[in-house]
């Protein structure tokens, strides 16, 4: 069991080497890159916007409902919303959702290519199939921090709307809370981990799709396994980065 896991991890890192070896012609890669940006980034904006807005609202409401002590200022609602959204909700929670949405799409599309011999066809032609399939996804996901930036903004906007229009706080109080005790390094921390999550989101599902064996049923299983491993890895990397950068 352990040997199998270690061998899989080794194979995953060997895949990284293969991603950058013998690159596909730029003329072809350009088209692939645009398609991946459309599928992975643009295609995710709707769900990210929806979740961010409403979860931001819920965070503000939950915070407001737990403020029973009159000595605690109402600005805490804005402050708590900002900290939750900026530090954890947008980068980590959205990345786990994306491990399901983007990850299963990546694994099933590459896995289907494996099952229908399309990857064999690429390799027989002399194409570096790993570079052809994974590199454009990796490059497209370099735009992932923009998605998370939008999630941060919409999360705070949702918090403001829920707080103000729900009658929990005034707009001035909420905005004062958003601005209080702001540490610019928290933004850097959030984007550093977002960048690392983007690398994981592109490569772990690709790995599970590329090296899968079997038929249609195994494509489904590979998608589930990819989601589990991507989520586990995101959580672990999140913990390590937080230890390294914030303590």
């Amino acid at each position, binding site marked *: 069991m352990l040997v199998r896991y270690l061998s899989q991890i080794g194979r995953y890192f060997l895949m990284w080497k293969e991603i950058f070896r*013998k690159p596909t012609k730029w003329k*072809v890669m350009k088209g692939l890159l645009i398609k991946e940006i459309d599928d992975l980034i643009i295609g995710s904006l709707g769900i990210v916007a929806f979740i961010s807005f409403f979860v931001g609202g819920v965070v503000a409401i939950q915070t407001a409902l737990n403020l029973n002590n009159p000595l605690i200022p109402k600005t805490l609602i804005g402050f708590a919303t900002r900290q939750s959204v900026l530090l954890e909700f947008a980068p980590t929670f959205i990345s786990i959702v994306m491990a399901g949405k983007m990850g299963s799409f990546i694994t099933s599309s590459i896995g289907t290519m494996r099952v229908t*011999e399309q990857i*064999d066809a690429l390799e*027989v*032609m*002399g*194409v570096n199939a790993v570079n052809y399939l994974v590199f454009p996804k990796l490059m497209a996901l370099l735009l992932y921090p923009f998605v998370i930036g939008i999630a941060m903004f919409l999360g705070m906007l949702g918090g403001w709307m829920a707080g103000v229009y729900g009658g929990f706080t005034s707009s001035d109080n909420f905005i004062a809370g958003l601005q209080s005790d702001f540490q610019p390094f928290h933004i850097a921390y959030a984007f550093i981990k977002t960048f690392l999550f983007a690398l994981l989101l592109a490569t772990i599902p690709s790995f599970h799709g590329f090296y899968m064996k079997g038929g249609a049923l195994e494509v489904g299983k590979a998608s589930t396994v990819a989601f589990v491993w991507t989520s586990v890895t995101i959580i672990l990397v999140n913990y390590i980065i937080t230890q390294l950068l914030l303590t």
Partner: protein
Amino acid sequence: MIEIKNLEKSFGENKVLKGISSVFETGKTNLIIGQSGSGKTVLLKTLLGIHEPSAGTIVFDGRDYSNLTRDERRALRTEIGMVFQGSALFDSMTVAENVAFPLKMFTKNSRSEIHDRVDFVLKRVNLIDAHHKLPSEISGGMQKRVAIARAIVNRPKYLFCDEPNSGLDPNTSTLIDNLIKEITEEYDITTVINTHDMNSVMEIGENILFLKNGVKAWQGNKDEMFVTENEAVVDFVYSSNLFKKVREAYLKDLK
């Protein structure tokens, strides 16, 4: 010409190919036949470089595959056209884009040159009307023809076909067989076909390699196949009553 000498392939303890030697000649349709599990697909995949041989050599027109560097192997693969059992067309691309793919990847041809070449090969396989269709919008036989067009578009020296007739009706099968034979002669390429289909064997079998349990049991052409007394071949090829009667009629004619 492709020459294999004492080719062996094992998966762990399981020895699938046991010292096969043969020559696949240029300008001829070379067929590999045998029962399921006889090692046909493993032999084809070993020839294609998908499996590394455990022992023995594969020589492509004087180039020993095992002595080639990784880049030389990739370069050799650009000289290979392959028709997969399930066609293996790229789902997200149209017929024309599928056919143009090897040209875009491996040549410096201009857009108009690629367009002209794609038109030419699609005309050659009688599919010019399917230009803008997706693989899911065309029939299995048409998909096979697109796969053949894609395989020959970059003027390969070697054409490999894995069960090109599987899942096709007899008419379409004959059409595909004849197309492969014509292309082989027209472009003077080395064609290797892995098949179960005895109609194909009788139709286009110019050089037939019969495998049994990973060993070369017999080799010859379709005419020699009618008269051979080789027990393994007779058991396999003439297991159906139809082919048994065809053989009897052929032998009666000879007498």
